[in-house]
């Protein structure tokens, strides 16, 4: 082995290059927040002086000033590459703020405006014969309708979706399985209004039934099925094959293996998927508008006559256009959002606690 220890300091390389320095002038750490504050102040100042009344404009001016200012200063102090890096960072941050503001405002408005008339009376009474411009009334009929329609839709869609997923994962080979997989994907993209039109054309126009909660449930079921299939499929695929083989090797028939081994292992995830699907169809308005029509009073029979549902109630109260009906629309929206969010949170909670403990 050659001994290089004697060669303490090598002479400079034969082709000398400009000395590489590790040091790089950097802007101090506090500069981005300070720049942001300055840009905000300047944006507000310009807005005030120019008399722009919309806060959206103030914000846009501030954002532009921040991006350009940061880029210019960084280009001067740190060089072009660092400036580009800073430009990307500012853009990403502003994209984030740009998105958070409307979404936060949406939640905020719903909660603040919705809590105005939301009370026990509102939850336990229907609209009855109350004139739309009058204060009062409630959403009891809408809650009843939504629960019945969503319940019926789940009764139709969940078993079909579950069994289809079992078919695809446990049995599916060949052309039929491929076709089903493909059309489940296609079905995911069907707009809700198209599902509504389909049921309208068959159930009401051709078969001659009137509007009913059940008609709405069928359209909702069409929207729910592909979601259930997809999520259940994912969960079943997570069950390790060793488990199935262990059971089959004991002489347990395949259907009992599926029922006793595969499904219990993945039941948490499947429940989550079904609940998320329920949350999704609870908020669907368009098919309900076409098929359930909306009613002012409680109709406890989902198979006969028009019913109400929460999202449709929001839409119809908004259409009335009086202050009282706007208040009711916001309050119903708050109830709807709370219902959907609670379903989501519980579903994700279940997924977390009951996650299948696979070896992988």
């Amino acid at each position, binding site marked *: 082995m050659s001994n290089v220890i004697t060669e303490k300091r090598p002479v400079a390389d034969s082709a000398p290059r400009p000395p590489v320095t590790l040091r790089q002038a950097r802007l101090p750490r506090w500069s981005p927040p300070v720049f942001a504050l300055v840009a905000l102040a300047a944006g507000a100042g310009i807005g005030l002086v120019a008399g722009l009344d919309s806060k959206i404009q103030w914000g846009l001016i501030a954002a532009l000033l921040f991006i350009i200012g940061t880029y210019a200063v960084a280009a001067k102090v740190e060089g072009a590459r660092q400036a580009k890096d800073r430009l990307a960072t500012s853009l990403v941050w502003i994209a984030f703020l740009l998105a958070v503001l409307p979404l936060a405002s949406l939640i905020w408005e719903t909660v603040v405006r919705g809590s105005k008339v939301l009370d026990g009376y509102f939850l336990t009474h229907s609209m009855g014969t109350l004139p739309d411009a009058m204060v009062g009334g409630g959403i009891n009929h809408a809650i009843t309708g939504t629960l019945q329609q969503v319940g019926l839709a789940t009764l139709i869609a969940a078993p079909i979706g579950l069994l289809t997923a079992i078919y695809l994962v446990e049995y599916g080979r060949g052309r039929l399985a491929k076709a089903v997989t493909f059309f489940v994907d296609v079905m995911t993209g069907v707009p809700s209004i198209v599902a509504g039109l389909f049921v309208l054309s068959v159930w009401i126009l051709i078969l001659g039934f009137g509007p009913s909660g059940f008609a709405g449930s069928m359209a909702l079921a069409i929207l729910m099925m592909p979601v259930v299939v997809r999520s259940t499929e994912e969960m079943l695929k997570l069950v390790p094959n060793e488990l199935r083989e262990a059971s089959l090797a004991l002489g347990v028939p395949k259907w009992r293996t599926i029922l006793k081994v595969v499904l219990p292992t993945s039941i948490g995830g499947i429940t989550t998927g079904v609940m998320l699907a329920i949350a*999704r169809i609870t908020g669907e308005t368009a098919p309900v508008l076409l098929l359930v029509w909306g009613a002012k009073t409680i109709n406890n029979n989902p198979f006969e006559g028009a019913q109400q549902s929460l999202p449709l109630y929001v839409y119809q109260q908004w259409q009335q256009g009086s202050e009282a009906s*706007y208040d009711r629309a916001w309050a119903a929206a708050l109830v709807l959002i709370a219902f959907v969010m609670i379903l989501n949170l519980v579903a994700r909670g279940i997924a977390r606690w009951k996650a299948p403990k696979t070896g992988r």
Partner: protein
Amino acid sequence: MDTSAIPQNPPPAAPVEPSEVSGKSVRPGDRVFLGLSRGSGIALLVIMAAIAAFLTYRSVLAIQGDKANFFTTFEWDPTGAEPKFGIAVLAFGTVVSSIIAMVIAVPVAVGIALFISHYAPRKLASPLGYVIDLLAAVPSIIYGLWGALFLVPHLSGLYSWLDDYLGWTGIFSYSQGAARSLFTVGILLAIMILPIVTSVSREVFLQVPKMHEEAALALGATRWEVIRMSVLPFGRSGIISASMLGLGRALGETMAVATVLSPSFLIGLSLLDPGGGTFAQNIASKFSEADTFGQDALIASGLVLFVITLLVNGAARLIIARRKEYSGANA
């Protein structure tokens, strides 16, 4: 298990002697179970076929009765003595509002996805992802309500501003009044599809192999250069398919458009002035005043929407499938 040995139709649950030796599934339980699950799959196919068939059937009825050209007419009057209706305005409005939504939403969504995957402080990143997923579940009617009662009043200032500086283009000219225009619809749709586009893009960005990012880092790349060299190329097809999914939603969105837009059957150059319409919005607004023939006419327009969303979603699936092959080749 050999499925080819099983009869095509679920047999009646007649007691069949289980043959222990052959291992073929002749047990009644197995047969019934397979029959049920395969039957469900077939039911799904039947539903899809029925959707296409019945919509087409009613559409044919409607278009036969249409005294005007279904594709080029600027009018929607199926109930008159001379029924005249056409989808030109709806097609224009649907495409334009969706394009506006995509132009706004995709860059912002990619930005947020990058923020969550690469920029946000680690403690903030995963709760943020969680919140975004939750927001994707907010019902569209609530976006509509918020859009009509909060967004619209706040946009007129911005629109007069745009009119002052860009009004000469014609596209951004704005005569005062409520901002219930296609552009507002585009903004609202953008806000609505942000969560879903963000959430899919974020998933893809998080899948970028660490070693590709480290390769760029070790060459002395800044954070942006790492993203440009390894994250974006890897995630490109994911971004495209996420955008297509978002586009599919924007095209078919009904309630948010119906609440925000002040519709008309004219195509104006200005995007900021009220007017125009979309397929889904038109169905929702015209439904209550439609007779049977009017409903058929709406179904015909729905069929066009159905075909458009099918094409968009199909394209998205194709891109995803390609990406799978692509990443498999590099595994």
